C-alpha cells in the first residue's frame, strides 16, 4: 500500500511539474517533450487505479501518434517564441477567469460526490462484470466485439473513408519524378549498362 501511495505522489508530482513546463518552456520542441512526459505519468496514474487499458491507449495513441505528430509540426514550422509570448499578459485575465471557473466546477463535482453519493449511482445502471474476475481490457473487448460489433465495424468504415478522402484530396501525380523501380534495377543486364570500347593506345575516344 505504501508503495502505491509513493508511486501516486511521484507520478502526480512529475506530471504537474511537466505540465507547467509545457507552457513555460522557451523552446517549443522542449514543450512537446514535456507533454510526452506528462502523458507517460498520466498513464502511470491510470495503471495505479487499475485501468490498464486506458493507460496503454494513452501511451499508444497520445504518445505514439498525437505527440509525435506535434513534434513533427513544431519542428517543421518556424515558430518564433518571443513573438508568441507577446500577448501573454494581455490574455492573462481571460485565461485566469476560465481556469477559475474550471476550478469552481471541479470543487462542485467533488462536493457532490462527497455529500450526495447517490447521484452518481443513478447514472451507473449498465451492468458491469465484477472487477476481480476480468481485467478491464477483457471486459471492454467482450462488449466491443459482441454487443457493439456493428458500431465497431461501422467506425472502421468511417476511418477507411477518411483515409480514401485524404489520399484523393492530396495525392498528385507529378510529372518528371524519378522513382526507384527495383524490378528494373535487378533486371538490368551487363550488356545494357556498359559498353566495352577498344581504345587505341596514344589517343582518346
Amino acid at each position, binding site marked *: 500500500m505504501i508503495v502505491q501511495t509513493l508511486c501516486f505522489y511521484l507520478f502526480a508530482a512529475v506530471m504537474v511539474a511537466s505540465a507547467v513546463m509545457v507552457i513555460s518552456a522557451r523552446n517549443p520542441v522542449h514543450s512537446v517533450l514535456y507533454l510526452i512526459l506528462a502523458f507517460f505519468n498520466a498513464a502511470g496514474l491510470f495503471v495505479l487505479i487499475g485501468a490498464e487499458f486506458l493507460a496503454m491507449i494513452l501511451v499508444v495513441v497520445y504518445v505514439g501518434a498525437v505527440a509525435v505528430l506535434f513534434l513533427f509540426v513544431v519542428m517543421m514550422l518556424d515558430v518564433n517564441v518571443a513573438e508568441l509570448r507577446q500577448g501573454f499578459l494581455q490574455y492573462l485575465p481571460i485565461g485566469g477567469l476560465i481556469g477559475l471557473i474550471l476550478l469552481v466546477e471541479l470543487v462542485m463535482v467533488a462536493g457532490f460526490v462527497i455529500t450526495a453519493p447517490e447521484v452518481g449511482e443513478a*447514472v451507473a445502471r449498465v451492468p458491469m462484470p465484477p472487477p476481480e474476475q476480468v481485467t478491464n481490457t477483457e471486459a471492454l473487448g467482450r462488449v466491443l466485439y459482441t*454487443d457493439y460489433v*456493428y*458500431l465497431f465495424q*461501422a467506425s472502421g468504415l*468511417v476511418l*477507411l*473513408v477518411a483515409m480514401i478522402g485524404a489520399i484523393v484530396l492530396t495525392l498528385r501525380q507529378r510529372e518528371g519524378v524519378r522513382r526507384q523501380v527495383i524490378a528494373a534495377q535487378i533486371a538490368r543486364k551487363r550488356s545494357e549498362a556498359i559498353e566495352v570500347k577498344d581504345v587505341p593506345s596514344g589517343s582518346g575516344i
Partner: protein
Amino acid sequence: MDTASLTTSLIAALPEVFLACAGIFILMVGVFSGARATHTAMLLSVAALVGALVLVLFGPSRAAFAFNDLFVNDGFGDFMKIVVLGAAALTLIISFGYIRREQLDRFEYPVLLVFAVVGMLMMISANDLISLYVGLELQSLALYVVAAFRRDTLRSSEAGLKYFLLGALSSGMMLYGMSLVYGFTGTTSFTVLADHFAGQAAAGQELWLGALVGLVFVVAGLAFKISAVPFHMWTPDVYEGAPTSVTAFFAAAPKVAAMALVVRVLMGPFGAWVEQWQQIVVFVSIASMLLGALAAIQQTNIKRLMAYSSIGHVGYALVGLAAGTEAGIRGVAIYMAIYVLMTIGTFACILCMRQKERMVEGIDDLKGLSKTHPLMALALAIFMFSMAGIPPMAGFFGKIYVFLPAIEAGLYALAVIGVLTSVVACYYYLRIVKLMYFDEPAEGFDRPVGREVGAVIAGTAVLVLFFFVAPGPLVDGAAAAADAFFAVAG
C-alpha cells in the same frame, strides 16, 4: 452475441453488408486496374447499388432487430432504402459523361459515393443514438470529400471546406443533444427511449427539461442535414461550388436519408412527445417554405436556384411530419420519392448544359431551348411544372398528400402558408419555361447529350407526367411504410 444471433444479424443487414463489401472490392479493382479504372469502377458501383436494391426488394426475409437492437428493419426503412438506392444509382448513371469530360475521372469518386450510400442505409436503419451518429458520419465524411473533389478549383475547395466546417458544427450540436438525452434517461436505444417516454406521458408526467433541451439540439443537428431553415446557409454555396454531378447526388439521396432519419427520431423515441416537437417542425417548415420561395426568385445560376428549390421542398415535406399522424408520414414518404424523381430529371438536364465543351450554369443559357432541343425543353418543362405543383404532374399529388394530413391535424395556418408559398415559387419555375419557349434562342447546347442521360431524362419525365395514371404502387408502398413504422413505434 453468439454465432447464431450474429448470423441472423448479418442477414438482417444484408443490403448494407453487401454494399460495404462491394465498396471495398471496387476500391481494390480501381487500385489494380490501370487506365480504365474509373469506367470500370463506375459500372461496378451502379451494379452494386442495383444489387443492394434487389436484396432489399427480393432478398431473404430479414429480422426486425439486429446487432443487439442497434439496427432495425421495418417497412418504413425498406421504402426509404429503395428510394435512396434508386436515387443514388440514377445520379451515378447520369454523371458518367460528366466526370469523363470534366477530368474528374478518378475511381475513388464512385467508391466514396458507395460508402456514402452505406452510411445512408445505416442512418435509415438506426435504432440507437450511436448507430445513428456513426451512419451519419460515414455519409457526411464521404460527401465532404466529393464536394471538394475538383480540388484545383477554388469554388469546389471552398464548397468542401464550408460543408465540412458547418457539418462538423452540426454534428457537435447533435452529439451534445444526444449526451443530454442519454444523461437524463440513461439509455441510447430508441426502443427503450420510446417505452420510457411513453410511460412518462401515460403517467401524466412532464418531459424532463434536460431531455427536452437535448431533443432541441438533436433536431437542430438533423435540420442542418436536410438543409432546413435556419440551418440552410451552406446549401446554395455548396450546391454551386461542388461539381454538378456531385450536386445532383447531394440533392437526391442524402436528402431522403436525412429526412427518413428525422422522421425516425421524432416519431420513434420521441413519438410520445408530439406536442413538444410539433412547434419546432412547424416553424422550420414555414421558414423553409418562405425562404425557398422568396430567395430563389433573384437567382441567375441554375444550381443555386435548385439549392433554394430543395430548401423549399424540404419545407413541404416537413408539413407532413408536423401533422405527426400516419397519413402525414405517408405524405412525407410519397413527397420525398416524387421529389427525388423530379430532382434527378432536372439535374440530368443541367448536366447536358454544355456550350463549346464547357459547362454553363446560367439560367439565361436556357433561352429558346424549345427550338434547339425540343425534347429536352419538353422534359425540363414537365419537371418545372411538377416542382411548381401544377396538376396533373406528380409534384401536385406530392403536395396534396402532405397538405391534407396537416389540415386534418388542425394545422390550418401551416397548410395555407404552404399553398401561398408554392404559388410564389411558381414564378421562378415558370420563368424557366417562359425562357425556353418564348425567348429567342441563345447558342444551343452541345450534342450528343449521351444515351444514358437521355434515357434517364425520358424515364423520369414519363414517370412524373403519368404518375396520376397509376399512383397505386407508390401510394400503397408509402402507406405500408407509414403503417409498419407505427406498428413498430407504437
